[in-house]
């Protein structure tokens, strides 16, 4: 039996740890208050500078952490909530997982801030935009750094709020506002599950602080798959479903593309939507105690991956394709969690953050050049006009398609190898998803960058490569997408080459004690692994060739709006009518119920009571005022009688 290593208290790091989320918060306050007053240069300096500083401090913490023997520690600030036995401290937990997320959030966050400085430069609410994304950075850092579930929940709600604010950033457009509301409401549904999960954790373990909960869970005597464990993990997973856009709560994410492109890249692709995965990973000890939940997660994951990939095949909006691809990749990550391949999941989170941020920023660069045109039917041949964007976008696409040696290949291959060990059917579906991903991504590349330009003359004359502040993040992310995969070199290329796996091993300490079998490292035959690798690469290449033949050789262009499509094409073009379905079975009944409540409860009962009180007072006063007759004798008589009555009551009754 393995010893449980509790994190030690390390107040020496208090200031540095506090500065990491605090700096973006200061940026938020300064930029938010100075929205129209500060010069744009100043706003971008503050916005990017604070995040860069956070990133540098995170790097320092990482170096310091590794130099001091990689021991997890907590930093306490103050006792935040104290009710009876419940003590919730405002404190941070710094361990391998936190540091990884911090580096990812602040690093990619900085690049996207830098990009936004160029992308949003023509926007009148430049300061507001930076204020919101700085607030997002603050909330996200709180989410990953907090040392208890309540702090995670605060960050969780904070990122949800920022997501809402930024989706509806161009709030003069009603559709965008509706998309923002949809995202907010769908997230709330998930949050309810998350909150109930936290309550249940508190009831079961008597604490919400990670070290205590996990230590309790590691010693848990209820056995594997006890009802309460399944309930906790499923409720937490409902929260993850909302935030990470899984079936059935995924429809908000594609609509969330209404926000500015850097927001799509930062919040709706690279960081916020991976919060669900972070949460499951953080609670890994609870999840290994509930294999049934894991099975559910795997099924939801693969179903989401497959469904979103099929929808992605027929979308014509450059950002929508990427959005569905994000949903699909998130499904992959949950699939990995479901088969208890935690390392592969976080590995894919990391590589996905690189290449999906890259793809979104590339798409932003294209949209910028195309004067806000997002429909790929009106693009084409952009390779010549946007060389840097093209090259970096191509790297991102190769990475997501899983072509070696780009980042996506390593993470996806490792993930699929675990799935293969777990369940061959799921592996087959995963491979199918991988095929479709590769196909629609290259469809996107070919339609956008190859062939001839299909837009208007005005757009053509305006085509230009983006400024340096936009291309620099693209280049950096392209490099990361290329080399990021080498963090996790599979065992076939040499033992102990998987840096990420070695690095993250300590975070499963509790799970080792609770259910060692579940987190045992995967030992897969080298020949099998070679075979799996070969198959997934072959599938990706076939998809690319297919896309090339269809969209470059035969010069096909997706049908224009209003043309008659084949039934299946129509079905996936309309996203399986899921939005319409939700509208019919959930939104309309609720609307109907609300209108009933409005008409009966609100208008009749509540208004009736309020107006009734008013009317009663008016009516009774109208009658009573005649008592004020002006006859002084009468007043005095009433006074004397009243005093006599009071005295009488006092003496003989009271």
């Amino acid at each position, binding site marked *: 039996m393995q010893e449980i290593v509790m994190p030690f208290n390390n107040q020496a790091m208090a200031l540095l740890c506090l500065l990491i989320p605090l700096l973006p918060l200061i940026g938020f306050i300064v930029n938010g208050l100075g929205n129209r007053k500060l010069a744009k240069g100043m706003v971008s300096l503050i916005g990017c500078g604070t995040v860069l500083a956070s990133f540098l401090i995170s790097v320092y913490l990482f170096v310091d952490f590794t130099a001091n023997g990689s021991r997890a520690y907590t930093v306490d600030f103050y006792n935040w909530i104290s009710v009876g036995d419940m003590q919730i401290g405002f404190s941070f937990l710094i361990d391998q997982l936190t540091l990884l997320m911090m580096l990812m959030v602040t690093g990619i966050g900085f690049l996207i801030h830098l990009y936004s400085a160029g992308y949003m430069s023509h926007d009148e609410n430049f300061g507001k935009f930076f204020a919101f994304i700085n607030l997002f950075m603050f909330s996200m850092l709180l989410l990953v750094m907090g040392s208890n579930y309540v702090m995670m929940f605060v960050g969780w709600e904070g990122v949800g709020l920022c997501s809402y604010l930024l989706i509806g950033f161009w709030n003069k457009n009603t559709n965008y506002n509706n998309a923002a509301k949809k995202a907010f409401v769908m997230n709330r549904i998930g949050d309810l599950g998350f909150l109930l999960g936290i309550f249940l954790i508190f009831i079961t373990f008597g604490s919400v602080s990670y070290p205590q909960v996990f230590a309790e869970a590691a010693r848990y005597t209820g056995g594997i798959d006890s009802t309460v464990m399944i309930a906790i993990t499923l409720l937490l997973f409902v929260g993850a479903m909302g935030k990470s856009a899984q079936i059935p709560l995924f429809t908000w994410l594609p609509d969330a593309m209404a926000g500015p492109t850097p927001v799509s890249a930062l919040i709706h692709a690279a960081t916020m939507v991976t919060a669900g995965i972070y949460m499951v990973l953080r609670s890994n000890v609870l999840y290994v105690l509930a294999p049934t939940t894991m099975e559910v997660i795997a099924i939801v994951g693969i179903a989401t991956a497959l469904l979103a990939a099929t929808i992605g095949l027929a979308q014509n909006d450059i950002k929508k394709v990427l959005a569905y691809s994000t949903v699909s990749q998130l499904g992959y990550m949950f699939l990995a969690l479901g088969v208890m391949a935690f390392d592969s999941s976080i590995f894919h989170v990391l590589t996905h953050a690189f290449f999906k941020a890259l793809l979104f920023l590339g798409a932003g660069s294209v949209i910028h050049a195309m004067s806000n045109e997002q429909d790929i039917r009106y693009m084409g041949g952009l390779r010549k006009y946007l060389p840097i964007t093209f090259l970096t976008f191509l790297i991102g696409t190769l990475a997501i398609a899983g072509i070696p040696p780009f980042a996506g290949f390593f993470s996806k291959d490792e993930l699929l190898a675990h799935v293969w060990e777990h369940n061959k059917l799921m592996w087959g579906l995963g491979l199918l998803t991988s095929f479709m991903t590769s196909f629609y991504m290259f469809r996107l590349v070919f339609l956008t960058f190859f062939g001839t330009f299909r837009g208007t003359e005005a757009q053509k004359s305006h085509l230009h490569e983006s400024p340096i502040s936009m291309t620099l993040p693209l280049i950096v992310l392209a490099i990361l997408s290329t080399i990021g995969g080498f963090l996790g070199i599979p065992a076939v290329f040499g033992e102990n080459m998987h840096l990420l796996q070695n690095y993250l091993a300590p975070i499963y300490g509790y799970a080792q004690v609770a259910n060692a079998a579940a987190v045992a490292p995967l030992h897969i035959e080298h020949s099998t692994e070679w075979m799996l690798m070969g198959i997934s690469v072959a599938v990706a290449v076939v998809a690319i060739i297919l896309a090339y033949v269809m969209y470059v050789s035969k010069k096909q262009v997706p049908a224009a709006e209003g043309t008659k499509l084949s039934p299946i094409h129509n079905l996936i073009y309309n996203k399986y009518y899921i939005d319409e379905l939700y509208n019919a079975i959930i939104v309309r009944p609720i609307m109907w119920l609300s209108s009933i409540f409005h008409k009966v409860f609100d208008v009749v009962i509540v208004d009736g009571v309020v107006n009734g009180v008013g009317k009663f007072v008016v009516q009774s006063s109208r009658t009573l*005022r*005649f008592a004020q*007759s002006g*006859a*002084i004798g009468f007043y005095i008589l009433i006074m*004397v009688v009243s005093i006599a009555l009071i005295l009488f009551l006092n003496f003989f009754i009271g």
Partner: protein
Amino acid sequence: MNQIPEIIRTVPLEYYLFFSTALFAIGVIGVLTRRNAIIIFMCVELMLNAVNVLLTALASYRGDATGQVFVFFIMAVAAAEVCVGLAIIVMIYRNIRSTDVQLLNRLKW
């Protein structure tokens, strides 16, 4: 100084009670039945003095000077009140050539 309470105590307490109750009742009836503002005013003074008598008597029977202090307060306030009240009555008389309170019924509803 101890003499005054002792002198007061030569009369039994009940007598004081009956006397001041009667005085107070006369005052109340006067206020309720008379229409002349000056008479009403005098009746109010009667009631105040009924209370004063009672306070003085009880204070000396209980051997506690507080009640007597209150009497001085009441007398001072009553003097001030008379001053203001009579002035008002004089003004009313100048306006309506009468001090009948029944005529003053314009302030209603």
